[in-house]
């Protein structure tokens, strides 16, 4: 033990915490993967109904939300670079923008779902049960479950980013100890990754 080095926290292991985050991301991918398989089977069995039901979705809102998420992914990725460059002010600023973009995404989603509710479309609604075919009910069921679960991930992601932001401000997350911010970033990119597949499968059916 000749080279005993001074270390503030001997339990900190950046590679291990990254690996742990990736393992968690794999479980998330398979969770959504299962839903995508359900979607593809039902679409395969009810192609016309899915096409008809998808007419009710607004591809413009979907595209706007796609771009919002892509930009937010870029800002959080940039924030990790800013942290490594020891530019705390820019890190905080980029994280604040990311949180704002996430909020705008959710507001869009609120209005989008609101319009569906105004048209009497929600899981188990009378309009759905009485007037829609089985395939259409399946489409909207999957739409609400998958975009809802995704929105839940957006909310959780926002909370994680807010925690990371606070710790960057306090100085407990810094260039030599960036794991929390990096893992928050990985989680946020996962949310983006899932949306990349949700968007064409729900909004771009013609």
């Amino acid at each position, binding site marked *: 033990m000749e080279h005993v080095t001074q270390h503030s926290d001997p339990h900190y292991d950046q590679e291990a915490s990254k690996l742990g985050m990736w393992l968690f991301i794999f479980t998330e991918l398979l969770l959504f993967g299962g839903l995508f398989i359900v979607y*593809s089977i039902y679409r395969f069995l009810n192609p016309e109904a899915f096409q008809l039901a998808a007419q009710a979705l607004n591809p413009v809102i979907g595209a706007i939300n796609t*771009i919002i998420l*892509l930009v937010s*992914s870029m800002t959080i990725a940039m924030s990790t*670079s800013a942290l490594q460059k020891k530019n705390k002010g820019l890190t905080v600023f980029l994280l604040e923008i990311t949180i704002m973009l996430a909020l705008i995404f959710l507001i869009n989603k609120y209005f989008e779902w609101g319009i569906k509710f105004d048209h009497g479309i929600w899981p188990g609604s009378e309009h759905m049960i009485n007037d829609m075919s089985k395939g259409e009910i399946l489409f909207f069921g999957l739409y609400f479950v998958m975009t809802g679960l995704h929105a839940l991930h957006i909310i959780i992601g926002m909370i994680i980013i807010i925690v990371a932001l606070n710790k960057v401000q306090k100085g407990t997350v810094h260039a030599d100890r960036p794991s929390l911010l990096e893992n928050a*970033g990985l989680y946020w990119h996962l949310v983006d990754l899932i949306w990349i597949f949700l968007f064409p499968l729900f909004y*771009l059916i013609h």
Partner: protein
Amino acid sequence: MENEKHHIVPYRVYFYILLALITLTFGSIGITHINVGEYSVLGALIFSTIKSFLVLTWFMHLKFDQPFLRIMVGFVALVFLAVIFITFLDYYYR
């Protein structure tokens, strides 16, 4: 570069990736507007796959991480594809 522990990605690289992702998004919107029937789904999924590859490689830093992480991500993708393939075999030949 690959094994450097603290590789700092320049801001502009992320910006270029964003531009590529937005371009591909419009590409996938475009391809589903062209009337190619069943192939439009396939086209949109190919665009999505390229986009997710960019996100995984650059935004999620896999390019600069240890190779075993890339292998694991690839393995998970293969498992997922295998499950889809087997499920469809089941439905197709019922």
